[in-house]
């Protein structure tokens, strides 16, 4: 269980939620593989995401009512579950973004000051 391949990190729970919500908000409805691929693309180097973790975030967000999944057809006419952000999800995204910015700013400040 603890033998994660090196380079792959477990993301903080809130972080992954934020990433998923933000991606869905900008890209529109997406399926799990699409999300994973998109995140891989976005990252400068291969994104260290364990795709299993993605499912944990998806089920959590769906249960909270922030995203909603529905079965649809892809462009290649494949069956896939597309997730879309809901109104409640957008509110949550705003709050989470705000929180993230504050936290990131704080951490950034710490890092800039560096060890004295």
């Amino acid at each position, binding site marked *: 269980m603890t033998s994660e391949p090196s380079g792959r990190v477990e993301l903080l729970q809130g972080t992954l939620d934020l990433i998923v919500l933000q991606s869905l908000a900008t890209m529109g409805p997406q*399926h*799990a*593989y*699409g999300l994973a*691929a998109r995140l891989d693309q976005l990252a400068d180097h291969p994104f260290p995401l364990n*795709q*299993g*973790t993605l*499912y*944990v975030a998806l*089920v*959590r967000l769906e*249960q*909270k*009512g*922030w995203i909603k999944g529905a*079965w649809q057809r*892809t462009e*290649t006419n*494949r*069956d*896939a*579950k597309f997730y879309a952000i809901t109104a*409640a999800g957008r509110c*949550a995204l705003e709050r989470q973004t705000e929180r993230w910015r504050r936290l990131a700013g704080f951490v950034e400040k710490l890092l800039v000051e560096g060890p004295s």
Partner: protein
Amino acid sequence: MIAGLRRFVLRLANFIRPAPADRQLEREVASHLVLMEEDLQRRGMTPEEAAVAARRTLRVHEVRERHRDARSFVWLEDARRDLRYAVRTLSATPGFTLLAVLTLALGIGSVTVIYSVIHDVLLDPLPYPDSGRFVNVRVRDTASGGGRAVLPAAEFLDFQQQSDVFEDVIGTRGDSLLLKTPDRVEILRAVHVTPNFFEVMGLPPLLGRAIGPADAAHDAPLVAVLRHRAWVSYFGADPGVVGRAYRFGEELRTVVGVMPPRFTWHAADVWIPRPVDLAAPDAVTFPRNFQARLKPGATIEQAEAQLNVIAARRARSHPDEYPETFRIEVVNVIEDVVGDFRGVLYTALAAVGLLLLIACCNVANMLLARATAREREMTIRAALGAGRGRIVRQLIVEGLLLALAGAAAGALLAHVGVDLLVRFLPEGPLPGEVAFGLGGPALVVSLVVAVSSAVLFGIAPALYAARRDLVQGLRGEGRGVAGGRGRLRNALVVTEVALSLVLLLGAGLLMRTFVSLVRVETGVDADRILVVFVVFPPGEYEEPAARRQFFDRALERISALPLVEAASATQGIPVFGGFRTELGLAGDPPSRERMSVVQWCTEDYFRTVGLTTVAGVHLPRIGPDEAPRTTVVNQTFASTYFGGAAGALGQSIELLLPVGTSSERKEVRFEIVGVVRDVRNQGIREGPAPHVYLPDGMTVGAGRTILVRAAGDPRMLAEPTRRVLAEIDSNVAIRPPDTFQEALDRYIFAQPRFSLLVLAVFAITGTVLVAIGVFSVMAYTVSRQTREIAVRIALGASRRQAMGVVLGLAIRLLAVGIAAGWLASLATTRLIEAQLWNTSRHDPLTAVAAIGIVAAVALVACYLPARRAMGVDPVVALRHE
């Protein structure tokens, strides 16, 4: 907040119905793989490469696991899986499961029953608020051990006014009075109470109102409050009685209230208010009894100290009221009321505790044997990666499941058991307030027992199994009987045998006691006699001549009834005589050194109870104006004072007897004209004391007993007798007639029978449990020895020799168990010594019988599996491994 709640509900829904979410996920994962493969092929991989790569990226197994964790409650899911697994394992071995549940049910059920009874009788028998602080007060003569519980008004007031440990003080006096209803006369027990009585007792009435201080005022109307039972049986439970007036004794009183069923203080039928009045002519006899409620925090010792100071002061001014040396005793009421019964119930609790121990040993043993048999399974599970905690938890769940099933079955058993037990409870030693039921506390006890036994049984084998060395466990099951677990199992068998022997010995001793009690020759033909207790209305029949006339007419007409062989009137009936008085012999005046039982009876008494004359003649018939001058004595009297029946005839004796209805006594001289056979006259357990029968002389007391000897079943005479008496005077009341045997059963045999019943049930249950336990352990041991037996037989041992090897161990265990049990019983039989009669607690017959039963049961339990093992073909047994 809302999001969190929403998530919680959905997780719960997914836990309850996991299938839809599972299907969704499978579909989603499949689609995920397809999409990824498609993508990878687009980037130039072959379909095969793409499939492998996709599966490497998305580790499906892990996705499933983590998805389940996130969408549901993982610990609940685990618990459910454990439970399902446990149910499957337990139902795979129905024999084991049934025996284990049955064993636990017997143990838990009997503990619950006895605890229910102990709780309702000993711990919380009275329904009154703060009843634990009620105390009785007695004057104890420290020289003789006797004393009085009767307090005259002046003493009562001194105690009440001069002490400060009591919150409230009540005084009572019991009396019987006649209630005249249109169709009959009933005898009621009336209790006069101080006006604060109901306020102090603190229970509201069922109907109407209770008596209050206002009812004690000089010009207040006369009132009464009814007990529930009296209301039901004498007034047909008619709510209209409240507000109506009835003739209670000599007075017309208005019924103002009816108390609830459990309000039965002093076994009254009716309560009547009465203030304490020093000027009243009977101030000496009211109140008679003194009860008080201690202030919160005040102790019995403080109360005793204060009352002793007050009483010592009183004794100086009223020396005639107190014995020479005395002390005041303050006794908790509950203690006073149920104290006698405590021994019986705690014996039962001890017995039931042993039973539960046996049951625990049994189940522990079965689980141990099973744990050994499951070594391979546990090892495989450990090898497959199950953590030690996981295996332990699994086994604990199994234990819990067994225990809960046992508790459920036990509760059912207890429900039936309480009903049964209550039916056999003796009435005498219990107060009327006691109400039985499987109360909350009893169920809690049962649950605690169940859960702790689960932990106990679950953990021991679980820890052992979890500590298993994988390699050794896989290589094969340990063979033979020796080894660590073998020793533990053997110790449990020894314990069980010992405990059951202790139980059986106890039950055996009580059985011997009971049998000797029942076999006691009372000297009376108990099953032929009807007992009719007569009460005269107040103010009538006060002259002895009037009573004599009534009894003469009654006996004449009863004797003429069909099937009546004889009838007589008497004061006091066997196995308690009349009263005791001082006796004077040949010039020596009556003294306390010589006492005799005195019983007045009419001339047909001896014929009625079946007493034969040893020497001389019967009692003479006394004319209406004649004073009795002759007497008949019993054999013990004759041999104690005159060296035998012949020496007693013609001798004269003097007795101190009451005169008229006053409490004054004077010496009266009698001549002995006959000697009769002995009858028990000091209760069933004591031998006969000197006894004097005096003819007639209806001088004392308002109550008399008529005994009727029947040619057949005396019960058939009850109604005709009642009719005859009603025809003579419809104002005379009688208690519902009893046969003599019924009276004996109720007052004498009920308690020993109850003790015996309880212990016998437990002893039998215990023996059954031991049989189950020994059988299951021996069956297991033998099954593991099958190979050894097969080898021995293959090598030429006879079946008898092989059997000897198997039984040898069993016999050794049995011998050790019996020795241990016998040693333990040397201590435990001391607990029931007080309940034994005419039976030594070292009674050899009982010991032999109990040991015989245990040994026989255990040997049969070993022999059956051993014989089965002998029957196995050696070739089959050897190939089986």
